[in-house]
């Protein structure tokens, strides 16, 4: 067991536990805080995959902006946390999710082994802001512009939706 593997196992365990905590907490506030933890662990996993810029963006956008909106909405609505425990339905959901996980893992593992042996080594500036911007503003120029239009549409949409009387 090398250090990399141990780090990965620790991170993976923390991520899985916090993800399960998101869906099993009864109070939505605790769910939201667990989700912040899960997003943070994903950001650390990005760091181990040489994606430092994405790790920073993940913390800024997800754990910062999106989760603040979630917490605001939870506190604004103050929803009733009690929902009925339906054990049959929970059993069905767990079973379906377990089958899905097994199938996905069975699907990716043989492919992954083949892919990995190809290009292992990358340059030291892989994942740097410069590389990301180069890719973003050359190959992905059109999607970038479309994404800006999408965000504008979302902005106008929420103003229209959230206004009390039109």
């Amino acid at each position, binding site marked *: 067991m090398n250090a990399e593997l141990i780090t990965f196992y620790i991170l993976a365990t923390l991520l899985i536990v916090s993800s*399960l905590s998101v869906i099993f907490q009864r109070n939505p506030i605790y769910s939201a805080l667990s989700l912040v933890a899960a997003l943070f662990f994903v950001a650390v996993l990005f760091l181990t995959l040489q994606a430092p810029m994405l790790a920073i963006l993940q913390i800024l956008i997800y754990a910062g902006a999106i989760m603040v909106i*979630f917490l605001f909405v939870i506190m604004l609505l103050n929803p009733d946390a009690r929902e009925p425990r339906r054990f049959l339905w929970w059993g069905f959901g767990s079973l379906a999710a377990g089958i899905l996980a097994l199938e996905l893992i069975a699907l990716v593992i043989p492919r*992954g082994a083949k892919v990995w042996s190809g290009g292992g080594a990358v340059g030291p500036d*892989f994942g740097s802001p410069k590389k990301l911007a180069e*890719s*973003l503003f050359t190959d992905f120029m059109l*999607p970038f512009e479309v994404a800006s239009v999408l965000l504008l*549409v979302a902005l106008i949409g929420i103003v229209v939706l959230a206004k009390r009387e039109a």
Partner: protein
Amino acid sequence: MLSLNYYLALSALIFAIGVMGVIIRRNLIIIMMSIELMLNAVNLAFVALARSHGSMDGQTIVVFVMAVAAAEAVVGLAIVITVFRQRQTLDPQEMQLLKG
């Protein structure tokens, strides 16, 4: 360097946890959080594959996924607020106006 399989398997597990949350919970806000979890699982797979191919394309796509996730979250939560104002509940089982 760690094998790609570990990351893809972890991504599959997190995605399945998100699906499970969507199935078993009856709170719209938590369902939306589960969708965020699924998006993050896919992001993780993208970054792992980008690292394994040595190409920046995967990381660039993650930026777009984040933009779409942000738009989805704000519009979805605005809809949740509107629905809650009208029906005073977050239970998707109660939202059956279209049911004949």
